[in-house]
């Protein structure tokens, strides 16, 4: 209840209802807090029932799935017989796909470590608590710094021929830099995009790249980790 008050803010008085509640007033908005029908429900039984219903739906789906689709099982493990390709579990196939491009230290150690570190530190910096448009302040400086980072990244990816990541990188960076140039009559989508912080762009980049890499590793890789079409069976 003792948040630093070095900005224009008003507090919601009902601390029982919303223990920590900060309202920000930016230049474009009024300090007025919209009234809400913010009723509470009892955990027992309503929340528990809802959770139970959700889990039951899930269980039902899994039970039906398990009744008709058998889990894969192959021949007895044989260290002398390497399948081609030897694939990791699907959630590591993005990583395995990276290993195809990068030396093991980069693809297998540095990149995953960076990802995990980034995930952990996300809430501790640049949270853009004011939900302010990313480009409003320091536009020139940001463009310089981010521009050079983006160019360096693209060059790095191109150097290793990682087009699977390069393409989403260019796309996401492109959309992000779109916000740097003021639009005379911004539409709703445009305004929404403009309001996104840097972490949003990084996360979206990570998500897109991870999905693409995992999909490629899962469906498009055959013997010798060569490119195959999923429908061209054997």
């Amino acid at each position, binding site marked *: 209840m003792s948040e630093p008050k070095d900005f224009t803010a008003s507090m919601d008085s009902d601390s029982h209802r919303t223990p920590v509640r900060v309202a920000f007033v930016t230049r474009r908005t009024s300090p007025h807090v919209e009234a809400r029908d913010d009723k509470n429900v009892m955990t027992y039984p309503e929340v528990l029932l809802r959770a139970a219903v959700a889990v039951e739906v899930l269980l039902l789906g899994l*039970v039906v799935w398990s009744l008709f689709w058998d889990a894969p099982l192959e021949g007895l493990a044989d260290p002398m017989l390497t399948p081609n390709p030897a694939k990791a579990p699907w959630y590591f196939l993005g990583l395995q796909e990276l290993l195809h491009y990068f030396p093991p230290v980069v693809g297998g150690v540095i990149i995953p470590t960076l990802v995990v570190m980034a995930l952990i530190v996300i809430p501790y910096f640049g949270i853009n608590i004011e939900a302010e448009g990313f480009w409003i302040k320091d536009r020139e400086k940001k463009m310089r710094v981010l521009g050079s980072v983006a160019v360096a990244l693209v060059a790095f990816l191109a150097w290793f021929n990682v087009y699977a990541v390069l393409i989403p990188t260019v796309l996401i960076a492109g959309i992000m830099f779109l916000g740097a140039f003021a639009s005379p009559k911004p539409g709703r989508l445009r305004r929404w995009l403009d309001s996104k912080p840097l972490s949003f762009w990084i996360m979206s980049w990570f998500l897109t790249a991870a999905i693409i890499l995992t999909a490629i590793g899962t469906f498009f890789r055959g013997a010798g980790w060569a490119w195959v079409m999923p429908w061209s069976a054997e």
Partner: protein
Amino acid sequence: MTEKIRTAWKFLFGDSARAFGSLSVVLVVMLAVVPAKDHFREWLHYQHEYQSLIRNRSDGVSLARRFQGGVQQIWLPELDVVDRCATCHSGLKEASLAGVAAQPFRPHPPIPHSLTEFGCVMCHRGQGFATTVEDAHSSTKAWEQAILPARYVESSCGQCHERPLEGTPQLNAGRDMLARYGCVHCHKIASPEGRVMTATDDPPSLAHVAEKTTREWIFAWIKNPQAYATTATMPNFQLSDEDARDISAFLINQSTPYIAGAPRKTPAVPKQDDTAAVQQGSSVYGESFCASCHAMQNAAGLMTGGNIGPELTRVGSKVKPEWLADWLRNPKVYDPETAMPHYRFEEKDVGLVMGFLGSKTDSDFLKDVHMDTATAAQIAHGKTLVSERGCASCHEINGVAHADNFAPELTAVGSLPLAKILFAPGMAHTVPDYISAKIRNPRSFGNALKMPKFTLSDSQVDSLVTALLAQTTRAKTLPATLRIQAAPPSTYQPAGRAGQLMTDMRCFSCHEINGRGGSMAPELTWEGSSVQRGWLVSFLKRPNTLRPTLIRRMPKFNMTDEEASVLADYIMTVYQTAAFDGAAKFAGGDSAHGKDLYYGKYACNSCHILDPAKDKGYIGPTLTEVGLRLNPEWIFHWLKNAQALRPGTLEVNWNMNDEDARAITAFLMEQKAAPRKGASR
């Protein structure tokens, strides 16, 4: 209508509690499907079917008493066997169900092993764990090894049995072929103990080949060996004319003389139009029993003769006269390792045989072959081809080293993982199909492959596939106590002058002594105990046959008296059995009683001939002169227990009492008909 649906929806999912309740009901119903699915398992269905099958049978009560429901399992940890086949194959041990045609209820045919001691997958392969038809029998992702097609089932015996078995003719034939067709020259095949299979063919050295034959013949031969001799074991390398031309050029070029010095004399060879002389040569060929080893196609196209030496149907188109003369005089001069014995022919006979063999030509065979003088480039290319095609794996060739492991090892080919096989398009993805296709038409897997094409019948291919499928990884993991190892190769070599003579006359090409030697003629390990010296000497000098039905007989080696005497002494002294005392004197018996027993109680005349005019027994040896030939002690012990003296003999194990055996022995010792002159036909 929509109103009704809305009401129903509200009733079922109107609030959280209702939704929870409704969903719980649905969930319970779905979970109830799980045990329901168990109820419809395949094996339960088959067990019900079996029960209704036996219900209406007269022996139904006893069958039902022996029937056990539920999953039936044979578990043999030391064999790595977990078999649930009997879960569905309920009638496996019920001999009374022999008439039942429908699987899975047929009983197992009688076999020497107990089903419960060896399980099913040891022989039939497939997935023993499985209790569904599909998983147990076919190749799946979860279990690659499908059930073995019935026609190869003998291969499973070969996992333990390295010696030939009476019940596995196909496996035995296949293993013989692996050795005889020279497969193992290029492919290594080892037993689980690591003993490497050796070839039994004897590919000739080509180091002096130009002395023996012409470049034209080599060209025609390597283009298609079977065109020269249908029984040739050399495979067809499917060479182009250019390649065959260059290889023949190189082979002639690398050849060196085998005798240094003066030109050799050729004996007087009768002219081909001297039919009388050719006929005389044919007689020498016949009397020397060349046909025991060499086959020849007669005018009617019938192949007669043995398969130890090469076929001689067209030999006149092949060999050079100087070489043939040297060869007939003493084959070891040309090839010290040859299986051909040293006949001590007189020069006159050499000429006669040459005349006869020279008449064995085929004017068509070399009709279209015309060779120009080879260029250096052709010879060099020929050498490259000879190395690439692995000619030196079988033949000794100057300047080309013998290549070890020229072709893939086949020690575990029966368990070859499918992932390691490149199948030709359109063929079934199984190991037996792969091996069979590879043998039948090796080039169907790619033109660049080196494996040559063998001329084999379908049953020969099946035999080879059977022998190769016996080479499994499972064989390696089986307990050593189960394995019946092949007899270790013997290096027995008789000593002294007799040993030299036996080597010179290649006794071991046909006779086995102390584990070494061929199987064509009788084993001689205990010959000294069995025969009388006088007979032996005369037999060595002039062999006549003991078994009238045989085409292949002991040849006449034209030994001197001294040589025959040395050999006989050695045999009489050294080849003695420990089964009885060789110095013991036969006590004698009632020969008249023996005659009665011979014709009556034991009916020996059904297999043996005593009186050529009357008796018709052709299975055992003729006994007209047995009193001159055999040692009475040997006959006595033979009658008591022949198998103890010679395991595997066809002779019945009579288990005779001493009195009977003595009587028959006494009777047989009186059979001393004078040997007929020229008994050999």
